[in-house]
């Protein structure tokens, strides 16, 4: 069972307190009607599904209830870092620093 740090509560808690919520940094378009079918399909369904570093959303559902973002390695399953929703995607340097 993984340990996850909630960036709002600033505590590390076991995985069972959290719910996964899909890939991060996929903002809903301001005006979906302006998108072509192709663009809308990409927004709806196409995900990066990487082997390795993955930016993803989690929710501290049995805690503060907040959604936040996380960097997790999809091979080892391990979290490198978590950060508040709305913050920019961390750089590779920041992720590397968090891992070490």
């Amino acid at each position, binding site marked *: *069972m993984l340990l996850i740090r909630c960036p709002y509560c600033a505590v590390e808690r*076991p995985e069972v307190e959290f719910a996964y*919520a899909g890939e991060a940094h996929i903002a809903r378009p301001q005006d979906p009607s302006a998108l072509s079918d192709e663009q809308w399909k990409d927004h709806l369904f196409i995900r990066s599904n990487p082997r390795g570093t993955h930016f993803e959303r989690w929710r501290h559902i049995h805690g503060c209830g907040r*959604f936040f973002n996380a960097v997790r390695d999809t091979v080892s399953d391990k979290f490198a870092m978590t950060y508040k929703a709305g913050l920019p995607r961390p750089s590779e340097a920041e992720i590397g620093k968090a891992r070490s």
Partner: protein
Amino acid sequence: MSTHRISAKGRVDHGKPVRFTFNGQRFEGRKGDTLASALLANGVHLIGRSFKYHRPRGILSSGSEEPNALVGVSRGVGRSEPNTRATVLEVFEGLSTVSQNHWPSLKRDVGAINDAFYMLFSAGFYYKTFMWPKSFWNKVYEPFIRGAAGLGKSPSLPDPDTYASRYAHCDVLVVGSGPAGLAAALEAGRSGAKVILVDEQAELGGSLLSEPDTGIDGQPAWQWLKAASDELAALKNVTVLTRTTAMGYYHENFLGLCQRLTDHLDTLPEGAPRERMWRVRAKQVVLAQGSIEKPLVFDGNDRPGVMLAGAARTYLNRYGVKVGNRAVVVTSHDSAWLAAIDLAEVGVKVAAIVDIRSSVSDHLVRLARAHGIEVLTGWTATGTRGRLRVSAVRVNPVGTNGKAGRARVIACDTVLMCGGWTPSVHLFSHTKGKLDWDEERQMFLPGAPTEETRCAGAGNGTFGLAGALREGAAAGAEAAADAGFKAKASDYRVEGDFECTGISVRELPTDRNPSSAKAFVDFQNDVTAKDIRLAVREGFLSIEHIKRYTTTGMATDQGKTSNINGLAIASDAVKRPAPAVGLTTFRPPYTPTTFGAFAGYNRGSLFEVTRKTAIDGWAEENGAVFEPVSLWRRAWYFPRPGETMHQAVARECRATRQSLGMFDASTLGKIEIVGPDAAEFMNRMYTNAWSKLAPGRLRYGLLLGEDGFIRDDGVIGRLSADRFHVTTTSGGAARVLAMMEDYLQTEWPDLKVWLTSTTEQWAVIALNGPNARKLIEPFVEGIDLSDAALPHMSVAEGRICGVPTRLFRVSFTGELGFEINVPSRYGRAVWETLYEAGRQYDITPYGTETMHVLRAEKGYIVVGQDTDGTLTPDDAGLGWAIGKAKPDFVGKRSLTRSDMLSPGRKQLVGLLTRDPATVLEEGAQIVDDPSQALPMKMIGHVTSSYWSEALGRSIALAVIEGGRARQGQTIHVPMPGKAHAAEITGTVFLDPENKRLNA
């Protein structure tokens, strides 16, 4: 009595006899015996029949790795367990055990015919043999195979035992209490760190229990062990768990420890749990799992009486049991020589030591000869004899060319084999830790860890007592230091430790045709060396494929004794080095673990939460039959004495349409949406337009996913400009709130809106029927109930029965209806008051079944029943619920994707069967032509289907391709027996003008 007991030896209590039975026969053991040691003490080696060939099998090992000696255990009603390893089962007074997998008896078994047809049952036998004819698989082959194969019999009664669970945290968790684990636990414990030491056996000591003839710091090994155990017991920061298996090692140093609490006791303490599952999060872990002895692979290596040499040594030194009177040792490793000498010292005739190596340490050879043992180095074993017990072993010299020479037969009642030792890397593998291949010693060793973990001792490839103590102490001290404590590794002085070496071999060389040899690799699944080579010849090159094709390593022992032998043979056959062929992945649990231990307290009524409404108790007292709806239990119907469900539902339907029905709707999901931007938030979430909805009015709300499909619905009340009372489906409440929170927190954090779940704050009493208004009028204060002041789809706040209410004028039945929301704590009191007053109108409580019938008569959908995640609003006939002028809402963009507009989409329609008495099955498929060839073209399915008491006939809702344009046409619904014709209709069966609703 006990022909093979040596009272001067062992740690069992020779003064405490324990009586038990095996296959009905009475035996005596000693307190401290396992079933295996107790049977061996009585000269019994034959324990069971093998899985596939029904070959007689004995005891191979002395530990949890045992593949052969599996028995059925029973102790009273419901307490039976199959496939228990005799080598770990502690005997107690009255223990009753049986052998498995034979008929009619262990000694005479009809299934052993399989052994004679050995050539037929080779690798992939099932896949090849039963391919044709295809139809025979279900009816003939599978039942036959299921009957013939398998091991023990599953218990058929509910388990009367209870199981406990516990969470724990510690600084250092040490797995294994052999010398390495003890040294680690001592260092960590002395540092003050919180330590848990866990061992699967009944007492601490590991290999020290089997090898007492060494000295540690000037003390005999067992004296040191006692001192170490006492010191650990005295340390308050150390928890010692024996009879506890570290069964799984999960992410971030989270381990499952299964502790067996009562299985070894003569009498079961009342109410005591049988097992306890510990879920431990450790800062640091030390794995000191030790090693497992490898069998040698030669013809007849599975005969009862053939066992691992180390096991024989354990039975002698730990249990005071000699495993035979005349033994031959077959080995490729020094350790078996030590076993032979231990046995010779208590008077066992060791006829010969057959070592495949041509050169062995002079010390061992001298020692053996001094004990009168014939030494045959550079020899091989090529066969055994005996039916139910080995009677002789066939041995041959191996020439310099590697070929076996002329055979010699040596009579014996025991063959002790040793092919070297395999470090136990199981738990390390659970963590996906990398394994490094040691080519010289032919073993996988723990490599770079992925967790905060250290391996020590034989499990790390460090064999010998001195090395184990040194490495264990270092690991314990380092682990404690990494957990924040000051620790220093002690030095140990060891005497009498002989550092054993050996070589790894594949199948032993033979002068016979290897393809007729029954040289077993995996004893539990009956896989021979020949099977593995055959699999490779047939093209299976990866160990993962070879494993699945031959089933090697797939039995309940996960190949603890067989994996490395299997890999070595596969690697030779594939002609690639072992690491390139790969080791199969070890997975939890380390040893078979009961379902009870995993379930713990979560069984029966504690298996899942049962949510009950404030009115649930009244329903129970009034004879309701309940059904589960998501986690709620809801009154399904209220049968009167002698009524069937059909009769009760028909009566409830009639009463509601004719006078007054009463329904507990408290499970409706409720979300309070409040804030200056509440209407804007509603506009973005729901399809409908909300800006112009006046306070005091209700609107049916439809919620889509961003993909355009219906997710949820519910009636929503606007209480004021900035406050909405949202209802959701009973099962969808949490999902809808989570979805709303997601959009609010992450897409529109600028909106000033607050969301609060109020599902459990409000009890909801639905009153439906022509007399609904008349009933509540006398109880309501501050609300004008007239149709003009409170028309259909409106809400008002006031009081009812003296308590605050949000009174909804709304109907899910098509009748004049009210949903009375009162704070939950008043729910039952208000219900009872209204029920008593309602007697003048023959008020009738009804359940979810009647609710479903009444709503279906009006064509009101139930999301999740009439929709399935692929229906758009238009598909469901709810196009009118879309606020066309709104620029955007969740799911809007998807509604114009090309496929969403295509003409052949399934649409919700009504169905009237040609025979009005036929009630279609929900979920039944719909076809145009019931006489077409199979497979038929299915054009839709029935979503809801009921007997309608109001219409005096059956009704149904269905989704059908292009269904709305096909009204009046006939379709067919194939069901068991016959296909039923039905006409496609609209979805509203009753009162399409809504006269009753607006009364």
